[in-house]
């Protein structure tokens, strides 16, 4: 992975985008979207995280290998959350009805 120098103005743009994202998060939090509050919050958070990873952490300019590992990290986290939550969501089907 040869060293790639990102122009400064990109950093400033990303910074701006992140601040906007934060503002949006707070605004959405005060609007009642029912179950979609959490969805909105997470979507924005994921977008912000992606910005940081892609530009601040230079993944955009890194080898495919680095990209792969970053993906692996989050996929594994997702596996753990998803499978465990499956248990809690489907246990409720098992209430015994006399």
């Amino acid at each position, binding site marked *: 992975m040869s060293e790639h120098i990102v122009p400064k103005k990109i950093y400033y743009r990303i910074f701006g985008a992140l601040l906007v994202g934060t503002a949006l998060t707070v605004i959405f939090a005060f609007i009642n979207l029912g179950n979609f509050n959490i969805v909105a919050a997470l979507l924005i958070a994921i977008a912000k995280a992606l910005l940081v990873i892609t530009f601040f952490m230079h993944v955009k300019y890194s080898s495919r290998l680095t990209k792969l590992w970053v993906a692996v990290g989050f996929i594994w986290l997702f596996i753990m959350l998803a499978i465990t939550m499956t248990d*809690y969501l489907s246990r409720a089907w098992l*209430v*015994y*009805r*006399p």
Partner: protein
Amino acid sequence: MIHHSLLAMSWMLPEQASSYAPEVDHLYEFLVGTTIFFCVLIFAAILFFFVKYRRRSSDEIPRPIAGSMVLESAWTIIPFIISLFMFAWGAKIYLQEYTIPNDALDIYVVGKQWMWKFQHPEGQREINELHLPVGRKIRFIMATEDVIHSFFIPAFRMKEDIVPGPNRYTTVWAEPTMTGQFHIFCAEYCGTSHSGMIGWVTVMNDRDYQNWLSGGAAEGSMADRGASLFQQLGCITCHRSDAQGQCPRLEGIYGKEQLMSDGQKVVADDSYIRESVLSPLAKIVAGYQPIMPSFQGQVSEEQIQELIAYIKSIGPPETTNATPGTMKGSTKISAPGSNPAAKPPIMTTGGATIVAPQTEKAQPAQLPQQTPGQNQ
């Protein structure tokens, strides 16, 4: 080969004392057969090569052999198919073991460090001893007073963990098919005398069982004891049968869907009633105030079970007492509810209500209540 293994193993199996024990053993024998087959196959190959291709001179270099796609796919696919078969068979038995029949006789089980306590609906109490009628489906409704225990009867091929928590009963069932005495073990490590937490289940034919029952029910049935508890604990002052009390009336609620204040419907089963006694505020029946104190620490697990038996018994006419036969009645009442979370009422395992979706979802605003029985 399989039959050979059967004969050889006859002394390696515990008695088949429950209706699904033979099924488990069949699968077991099938697996043993498969194992023997593959082991013989591979050991024979290894030994043959080991002798045939032993090194003859120190400097010989055999010709390399590239792999073979055919072989690779063969020994990928064939084992996979075999294991799929094993999986399906095992899952079938599993579902059977956790499908609670509706016409079962309830036995209440309490595990505590380090003993098993049993209660019969007719009122008999036993410790580390359990008497059961042969040929009758038994539903074990189990709770623990401390750590995780596991109710294990090898002869029945039956095992289930009992996980503590105010809102879970663990239920498992078996149908004894032969009379005799069998081991009861605790299979989940539970501390110092884990290996002392054992007992005997005595399966008797129906007449002996009836005699045994009539033998020692001094204090009346569980329901009777529950009724007197209902008085002593003062439940009766609020849960009045004339619906004049501040609390829901309990006649005939057992097994029926109740509407909660947050709009969700909950079937009043054993777990629900137990939770209502231990942490009353988890679910509030629509139109009532959350004023009931918790009885945690004031009633033992057995007493809770007696209360449940009582509430069962004060159901509609056809379930006036909690004798096994009438379990059918109480089950007729509750067709699978319209509860979104409710699948056809077939199976059970523990941990149900703790995950009932959004247990405490928005409830109507009321004044904070100063409630007795809380430690401030």
